[in-house]
């Protein structure tokens, strides 16, 4: 058996629950010895299920998990060289601190003198030396957390699994524990796999971050890569603040958004390709345009140019960058920086962060450096469904019956299997569920600067994507309507 470079290998693991839903959907992940890997995602994304499969509390429905090159997919948890720090600590309430920490060693029949030595060492490691004989129920959340960590690391596991261990602590305590965890990881030299929904925590702690959504891995990479080069809108939106905009790649290294052309560093998308761009709010450079525009001697553009060229603080990079102009709408103090929303003259709302305050109503200019524009391939350009043509100018898809325009219907016979296309902006959402042909729930919302891009999940679990100017909230119930003239049908290729 060849020695593997990886301590943990998760190969095409899927976990299907009884109701048929996938908690994990073809997940593959390799972890090197000594790495600190964070699995990050919103609640219900499958991150905890993945951790539990590695710990052995759940068995993958498909795929396999290797530990040190050995298949452990169905090995019970007590026979795996891994230990877990549970979300709610799971300390044994009938045992004191010492007995809790010693639990694993006592099971292994380690001599009591050695147990004592190691318990003291472990408690010292988590700075809980004087608490040996305390009742675990009398400890604070942070102290319980430390005991839970000591109880896990005392067994010298090859991998330590941590399931949102800091979620129940307050902010200050969490920050302290993060530093301690990081130090502990370096001191112990064992592999940490850490599950969290807190993106800041993930970026701070990890060597590598695994972003998950709906049972699938979206992106794996170093924190800086994940932050600077998100692979899709979900990752960009989930990690940090971001402006996500619809754009068109005009050619290599030239992208069009906010009605203007921008130089960028990306290539290989083809010409006139529809893409998404991400601009982090701190990557937009902002300066004030003087209010004496009324004098009329100079245009807004000229004044802004001047301002940029003579910026007294030299904050704005010089160069021939495409400029955006607009007015500050809101300004919030965020501690270190201010966060402004700026409405551009051509109607796009952008979020900007700067150390300087720009009050609402201020006329401003903005630039972004080419390397700070992250271009991403769009996951889809319009909604596509499988459908079947019915009688009376109707078509069935997503489990509902829809009217067709005569123009479309006359090209098909009832019974034809078809591919249905509907543009994002032609799906009509209704407040009153019953008014829609189909009912669903707003599942995910993305603000695109001048409109919202919604993912609507129907009651059957299918997804529709909708562009709209209306404001909806996550979880809103909606009725879905599509005007007959916006339903396009294509004959399916008959497979031979």
């Amino acid at each position: 058996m060849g020695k593997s470079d990886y301590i943990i290998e998760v190969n095409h693991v899927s976990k299907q629950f009884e109701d048929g839903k996938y908690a994990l959907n073809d997940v593959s992940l390799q972890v090197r010895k000594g790495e600190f890997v964070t699995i990050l995602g919103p609640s219900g994304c499958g991150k905890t299920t993945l951790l539990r499969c590695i710990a052995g509390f759940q068995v993958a429905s498909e795929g396999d998990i290797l530990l040190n090159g050995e298949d452990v997919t169905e090995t019970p948890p007590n026979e795996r060289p891994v230990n877990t720090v549970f979300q709610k600590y799971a300390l044994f309430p009938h045992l004191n601190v010492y007995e809790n920490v010693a639990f694993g060693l006592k099971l292994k029949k380690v001599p009591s003198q050695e147990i004592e030595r190691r318990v003291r060492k472990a408690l010292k490691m988590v700075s809980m030396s004087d608490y040996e004989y305390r009742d675990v129920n009398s400890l604070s959340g942070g102290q319980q957390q430390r005991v839970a960590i000591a109880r896990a690391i005392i067994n010298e596991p090859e991998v330590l699994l941590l399931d949102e261990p800091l979620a129940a602590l307050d902010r200050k305590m969490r920050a302290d524990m993060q530093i301690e965890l990081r130090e502990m990881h370096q001191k112990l030299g064992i592999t940490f796999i850490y599950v969290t929904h807190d993106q800041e925590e993930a970026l701070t702690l990890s060597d590598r971050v695994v972003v998950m959504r709906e049972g699938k891995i979206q992106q794996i990479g170093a924190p800086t890569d994940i932050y600077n080069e998100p692979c899709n809108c979900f990752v960009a939106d989930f990690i940090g603040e971001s402006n996500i905009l619809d754009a068109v790649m005009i050619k290599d290294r030239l992208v069009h958004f906010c009605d203007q052309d921008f130089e960028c560093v990306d290539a290989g998308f083809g010409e006139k390709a529809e893409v998404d761009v991400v601009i982090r709010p701190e990557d937009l450079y902002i300066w004030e345009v003087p209010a004496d525009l009324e004098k009329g001697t100079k245009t807004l553009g000229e004044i802004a140019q001047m301002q940029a060229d003579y910026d007294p603080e030299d904050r704005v990079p010089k160069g021939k960058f495409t400029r955006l102009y607009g007015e500050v709408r809101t300004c919030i103090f965020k501690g270190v920086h201010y966060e402004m929303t700026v409405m551009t003259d051509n109607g796009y709302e952008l979020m900007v962060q700067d150390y300087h305050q720009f009050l609402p109503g201020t006329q401003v200019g903005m630039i972004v450096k080419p390397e700070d524009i992250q271009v991403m391939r769009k996951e889809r350009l319009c909604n596509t469904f499988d459908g079947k043509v019915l009688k009376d100018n109707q078509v069935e898809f997503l489990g509902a019956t829809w009217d067709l325009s005569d123009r479309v219907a006359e090209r098909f016979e009832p019974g034809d299997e078809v591919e249905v296309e509907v543009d994002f902006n032609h799906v009509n959402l209704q407040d009153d569920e019953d008014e829609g042909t189909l009912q669903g729930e707003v599942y995910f919302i993305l603000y695109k600067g001048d409109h919202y891009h919604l993912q609507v999940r129907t009651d059957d679990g299918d997804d529709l994507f909708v562009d709209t100017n209306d404001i909806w909230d996550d979880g809103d119930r909606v009725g879905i309507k599509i005007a007959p003239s916006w339903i396009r049908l294509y004959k399916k290729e008959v497979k031979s």
Partner: protein
Amino acid sequence: MRITQNRRSWAWPYVLFMVLLVVLPLLLIGYYAFTDPQGGFTLRNFLQFFHKQEAINTFIYSLAIALITTIICLLLGYPAAYIMAMRSFRTPAVMAILFILPMWINFLLRTIATVELFHMFGLPLGEGALLFGMVYDFLPFMIYPIYNTLQKMDLSLIEAAKDLGARPKEVFTKVILPLSVPGIYSGIVMVFMPTVSTFAISELLTHNKITLFGSLIQRSFGEGGIAMWNYGAALSLIMLIIIGMTSFFGNNDTEDINR
């Protein structure tokens, strides 16, 4: 201020209830136990009990029957409660209801049904029938509290034990069992106390052949006439003290475990 005063007045019906139906009868028992039929103070009633070998034997026999009933209930009830409470056994909730259902029916009715069952199968009534009937009657009172504690137990504790290397047997002996002690204690109290003082069940299931301590008290009041009330009161007081003592010991134990 006024609200608290008003609220306090809500307690009055209960205070009245307690005084009339608990405190007063207890005082009366105490009064009768320490007086002779003429109303003079005496310890004769207690001495009569301690000098009568037959009464003491009955008392010890009752305690033994209650103890055996409790042990059998525990041995049968714990696994039943465990199987119902552990989700890994996938037992439907209906099963829990089926176990608890007998509690909803008057136990005299159940006892009479048991007697009929014994007749039907041609089994003799007597000590065996008595134990069977008592276990049958009181088993739900053992299952329910144990089921309750097991069901409320944090499942992540079981996972934590497995994670730390415990085999299934060790998970049970080192985590599940110690954590279910409060339920076991409640079950023991709920079975042991009523069985010590039971009399109707024993009379029905043994054709009055076996006399339990409860029957002795009942007969003192029922058949002995007013002259025997003092003796009956003394017996009641003795039983009360014994039961009180067991529950006190138990209470301290559970507190230690919780601490």
